[in-house]
């Protein structure tokens, strides 16, 4: 977590402390930080269980694999993303985001970051047996995360101009619900493919 505060602190140092500039890039920077934080945590999601055989034993028990996957996703969200959300007021302060912007940012983070965990877990499930997962994971997931990034940052931007942003939130919300419904099954399938 400290790492991300440090990285985010780099931006004012790099682009200058002018509040207007920081306000422009702020939401984007925080969202990119959330995506990177999510990617880092994803790698460890299934790896240990895969390597020590616990995943196998889980698949041979009568525990529902999609349900177990969902619990893991929740754990990932709580450990990799929630700290960032808790720290977000501080980060908003650093980047000169005003109040309406911050509330918009918070809403997009709450609605959108679960998507990072849910869809990320599908890619992790597929690559858990591979040796060098890291860059491949980023390559697989970044294109898929781009719409989320676009809608989230545009919501905060609209807020900064005192405009409505419920449309963006609605789209993010829809994506979230869709992946909440489908991802656990895709993750379970991905894990089974990795067992072959």
């Amino acid at each position, binding site marked *: 977590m400290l790492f991300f505060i440090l990285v985010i602190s780099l931006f004012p140092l790099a682009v200058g402390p002018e509040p207007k500039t920081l306000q422009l890039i702020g939401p984007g920077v925080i969202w990119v930080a959330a995506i990177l934080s999510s990617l880092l945590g994803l790698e460890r999601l299934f790896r240990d269980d895969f390597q*020590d055989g616990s995943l196998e034993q889980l698949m041979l*028990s009568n525990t529902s694999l999609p349900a177990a996957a969902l619990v893991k996703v929740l754990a990932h969200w709580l450990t990799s993303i929630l700290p960032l959300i808790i720290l977000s007021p501080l980060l908003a302060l650093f980047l000169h985001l005003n109040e309406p912007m911050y509330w918009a940012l918070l809403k997009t983070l709450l609605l959108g970051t679960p998507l990072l965990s849910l869809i990320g877990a599908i890619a992790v499930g597929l690559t858990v047996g591979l040796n060098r997962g890291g860059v491949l994971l980023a390559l697989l997931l970044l294109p898929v995360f781009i719409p989320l990034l676009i809608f989230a940052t545009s919501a905060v931007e609209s807020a900064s101009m005192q405009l409505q942003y419920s449309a963006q939130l609605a789209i993010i919300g829809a994506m979230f619900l869709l992946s909440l419904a489908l991802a656990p099954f895709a993750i379970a399938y991905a894990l089974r493919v990795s067992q072959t």
Partner: protein
Amino acid sequence: MAVISVINLSVVKTDRLLFEHLNFAVEQGGLLYVKGQNGAGKTSLLRVLAGLVNADSGKVYFSQQNIKDCRDDYHQHLVYFGHKLGINLTLSAVENLQYWCKQHQVVISVDRIFNTLAQLNLVGLEDIPVANLSAGQQRRVALARFWFKQNAKLWILDEPFTALDNQGIELISKQITQFLIGGGAVVITSHQALRLDYPTDELTLEYRI
């Protein structure tokens, strides 16, 4: 009625045909010893039997039902020990076994777990993280599950004796024999000769290019 039977089974791994048209059945109280050199397909066969991997063609039956159709029932009566131990290295032996039992719907008291670990010569090592144990000790913790699932009908063991000392091998062999006498079925592979005083069926897999 055979506990587990296999009809016309063929398995491909990494584009290599391991075996095809395989047929066999293991009855209650039957012991099947799968032999073959490295790469012949023993582990793959056992994983297909357990249902972790799909075969290319052919079917696996548990008590006359396709394992794909009776997944839950099959899992309830199966104990599988594979190449990976299936225990978490950060948890202690007791915690691991408690977790496994809960996962596999086995009701068990902590005392029972301690007693079994004592039988397996792990006294004093039950509460420390498993990562601190030796390879043989870790294996014995993982094998302890064979003392717990009472209503299991089939045991599948993939080279259980690796890294075990003579005493460990004796313990496991005795447990397997007891299970067989009680009517259980066992499919086992091992690079060492089996020291079980029990009628054994053998299946040898040839290494194919």
